[in-house]
């Protein structure tokens, strides 16, 4: 029962990761690719970790061995660190791309280019 739930979570995670990779291959410019990368792979990895945590909880109830508690806690810490650094990293990439002069290619409005560049 709990194993089935874990497998369903892992399946959803792999599906979202695959969609993210298709997104970075299909989208037209850097910023839209960053949308696909940041959101979808982070979300997919959260689901993968959820599956592993469910599996570890099931094993912890069955065998009462504390190494599965360690597995669950370390997985959660890894995913929190991943989500935090991924969001900030994609912001850094987007800012660097805009400063290096790459404008969003299909674009209906761009308020940032209207601001005069400081520094």
């Amino acid at each position, binding site marked *: 029962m709990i194993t089935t739930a874990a497998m369903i979570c892992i399946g959803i995670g792999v599906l*979202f990761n695959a*969609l993210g990779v*298709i*997104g970075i291959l*299909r*989208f*037209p*410019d850097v*910023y*839209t690719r*960053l*949308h*696909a990368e*940041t*959101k*979808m792979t*982070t*979300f997919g990895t959260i689901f993968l970790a959820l599956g592993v945590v469910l599996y570890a909880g099931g094993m912890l109830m069955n065998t009462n061995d*504390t*190494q599965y*508690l*360690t597995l669950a*806690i*370390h997985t959660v*810490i890894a995913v929190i660190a991943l*989500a*935090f650094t991924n*969001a*900030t990293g*994609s*912001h850094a990439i*987007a*800012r660097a791309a*805009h400063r290096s002069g790459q404008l*969003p290619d*299909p*674009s*209906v*409005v*761009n*308020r*940032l*280019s209207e*601001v005069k560049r400081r520094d």
Partner: protein
Amino acid sequence: MIRFLVTTIAAYAVYLLLTAGSGSIILWSESELIIGLCLAIIVGIASSRIFCRTGSPRMANPIRLLLLAVYAVIPLFIEMARANIDVAVRVITGNVRPGIVRVRTGMKTDLGQLILANSITLTPGTLTVDIDDASGDLFVHLINVPDDIRTKKSIEARELFSFFNIPAWIRRIAE
């Protein structure tokens, strides 16, 4: 002094989380507790000026931390799920109308701006590109710009989200 205490307690909590399940005093063994305390004090000395740069112990309040955990599990996760399904449909069909708009936030602290910017990056079809240091406004890249937003000079942060009032949550947590 208060900065040192806050940093040490945060580092010690993370160390205890990492070594949970090692012994019999609740979950930890004796040597883990002692050595962890020594290491946390070293980390506190080394990084207290950096971790609490402003010097106000506002985030040490446990109610705020609890609110942050609740915020990460319920509103942020639901918005993330909605945004992901939205972007997934766009990946398959391929119709995008991107653009960069200016968003007024009204956040007063750096931490509030950080949480809001990261929430915007993770949630609904948006991506923080740059930040105006003087006024604190964010420049946000939208994957699909609706017509009524396109003509406006700048918009409020609340209009970006659909189910929850995320800026109010963050103002409650960080200010």
